[in-house]
């Protein structure tokens, strides 16, 4: 496996302060390697978007990062902790090193400015010494990269279809050749045909430009196909992490297994599916022990008392980690 580019260590994110605080992300450890697609899946309220905003320091109040580190390894130079960057450094870091494509990307373009204005603005702000002609050439190249003809530069966002707007957003995210692109449900609002086209393009661009992607979605079947590794979040914690293929073939955590069996298959035999009984936990009143135990079909003795640590499962498969008492860690991660 290649070297890490972004390491999240024991990140905690709360909404609110003091005793009233809701812990949305709890002690999350996550490593993104250079050039890989790491999928982050979970239901609404599992903390996946909060995690993304927390590690880019984009979290609006009352969200507070209350602990942990986010270590970024630039191509050249020493690793830096994103959470301690000064505002000026943070400005340089954002977009140039890590860019983000938001959930409502369709609406994140400014409706009163042309696409060209918005694209050129990014380049101008981060590369003030570039020439106007150079910037324009770069903007044209970017649009071509995502499969939009350069004469669309002068369009307003409302003149583009949803898929094209999404592609413009991806072009903008890639404008400064970042090492890490965070995508928060980038295709949820799009139709399947468009979704596949954009993901295909993204896979191609990644091969060419070599950036790493943190891909956040609730659609696990999409992730299995598209990402290299998958981390599953539940109740603010990562409950399982594994290479995509292995996760699909043999999910260890009952929640992952339940999620995988929540998608009706388009091919193969038609089976009766049940989904997962119950509903996602309330972050204000989390169950004791493993947060999943009230819904878990395999819950037993220790589940409602002690929190299972995230660690490699006992029978030692490389690259896997699971937080479940059914698969007690061979060497629990010290906490």
């Amino acid at each position, binding site marked *: 496996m290649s070297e890490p580019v972004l390491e999240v260590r024991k990140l905690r994110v709360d909404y609110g302060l003091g005793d009233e605080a809701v812990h949305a992300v709890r002690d999350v450890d996550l490593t993104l390697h250079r050039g890989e697609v790491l999928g982050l899946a979970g*239901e*609404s309220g599992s903390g996946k978007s909060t995690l993304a905003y927390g590690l880019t320091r984009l979290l609006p109040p009352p969200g507070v990062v209350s602990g942990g580190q986010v270590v970024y390894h630039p191509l050249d130079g020493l690793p830096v902790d994103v959470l301690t960057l000064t505002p000026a450094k943070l400005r340089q870091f954002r977009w140039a090193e890590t860019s983000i494509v938001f959930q409502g990307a369709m609406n994140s373009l400014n409706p009163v400015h042309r696409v060209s204005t918005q694209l050129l603005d990014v380049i101008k702000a981060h590369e003030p010494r570039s020439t106007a002609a150079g910037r324009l050439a770069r903007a044209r190249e970017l649009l071509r990269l995502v*499969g939009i003809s350069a004469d669309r530069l002068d369009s307003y966002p409302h003149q583009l*279809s949803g*898929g094209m707007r999404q592609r413009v957003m991806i072009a903008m995210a890639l404008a400064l050749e970042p090492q890490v692109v965070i995508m928060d449900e980038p295709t949820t609002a799009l*139709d*399947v*045909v*468009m*979704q*596949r*086209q954009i*993901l*295909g*393009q*993204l*896979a*191609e661009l990644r091969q060419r430009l070599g950036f790493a992607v943190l891909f956040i979605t*609730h*659609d*696990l*079947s*999409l992730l*299995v*196909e*598209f990402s290299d590794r998958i981390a599953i979040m539940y109740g603010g914690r990562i409950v399982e992490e594994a290479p*995509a*293929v292995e996760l*699909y073939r043999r999910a260890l955590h009952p929640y992952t297994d*339940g*999620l*995988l069996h*929540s*998608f*009706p*298959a*388009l*091919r*193969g035999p*038609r089976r*009766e*599916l*049940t*989904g*997962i*009984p119950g*509903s*996602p936990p309330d972050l204000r009143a989390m169950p004791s022990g493993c947060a999943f135990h009230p819904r878990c079909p395999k819950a037993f003795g220790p589940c409602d008392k002690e929190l299972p640590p995230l660690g490699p499962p006992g029978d030692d498969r490389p690259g896997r980690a699971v937080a479940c008492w059914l698969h007690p860690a061979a060497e629990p991660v010290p906490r």
Partner: protein
Amino acid sequence: MTLSESTAAPVNEVVLEAVGLTKHFPVRRRLRDLVSRAPAAVHAVDDVSFALRRGQVTALVGESGSGKSTVARLLAQLYRRTAGDVRLHGVSTRVHGGRAFRSYVRRVQLILQDPFASLNPVHTIRYHLSRSLRIHGNAGRTAEDLDRALADLLTRVSLTPPERYLDAFPHELSGGQRQRVAIARALGAAPEVLLADEPVSMLDVSIRLGVLNLLRDLKERLDLAILYITHDIASARYFADETIVMYAGRMVEGGDSETVTQRPAHPYTRLLIESAPDPDSITGAAAATAHDRGDGEPPSLIRPPAGCRFHPRCPHAMPRCSVDLPPRLEIADRPGHWAACWLYDPATVAAEDAGAVPPPPASALGDGTATSGESR
């Protein structure tokens, strides 16, 4: 809860039928258009015909903008249709409110997509459900009757014990529970038909199946006819007996769900199925994009393409496709399977077939007659 496919159901009674249903929404005209052109309109739904049968689920699958929700609203009589007919038990109905509308709604109930928006946040579940029961005359005479009916409704949608939910406000329930309340409210009218417009797309993935299984269970117990509108063709395969695919306001393919999803005939259905995420083909996402010539964009519905509306994107388009509208053509592999595509008209294919091109993929051609001619 069992899968219903095993029972080779006899042809059930048709409850609600759409016949050539058409809806055009007028477009605001500019001054210069007034003199020059005929009034412009969005051709949201054109010539849609199908039947909802007792005890069966019919899925209407399509992308956003394909007109599937408009069909639901036409069937619910919330929109006035431009042309065509809605027949309830064979009787043509056109109601716009008042007593007639109520008696229609009593039999045909609509369930909406977003349970966060379709329940009034300032009222309790008890209020929502008793209103439905009262309006449709199912509340009984005494307070005990009403209480019994309320408990019965909640039990039916598996919200038990009922007392825990009756006096709750919508915000106290999760998305899945809210959608169950919305279903219970629809059942309060004791309807024959449920029109479910994307009933699970706003819910978390882990609870979607629970709601779908509930709907199927209700269908079997109450012998309901259900129209299931969705963009997710895999869930149509899972849940529906019959599947109809819509594209740009027209029906392009129909048949029983298993045939339509396993042996899709229309090029658009094939594109849709190829594009659906498939964990079993872990080859990278770039594979299936080659077939779509139209950049994934459905056409403008104000000036829809002549002929087949899919022809600008179709990899098998022939010259005739851009001129003549393809009729429903039977496909021999399974009774009731049809596609609106010239590829299945042997005469057209023979006439167009200049250079022999191998037949389209997916081996959907049961009769083996169709070969495709490339238009360019």
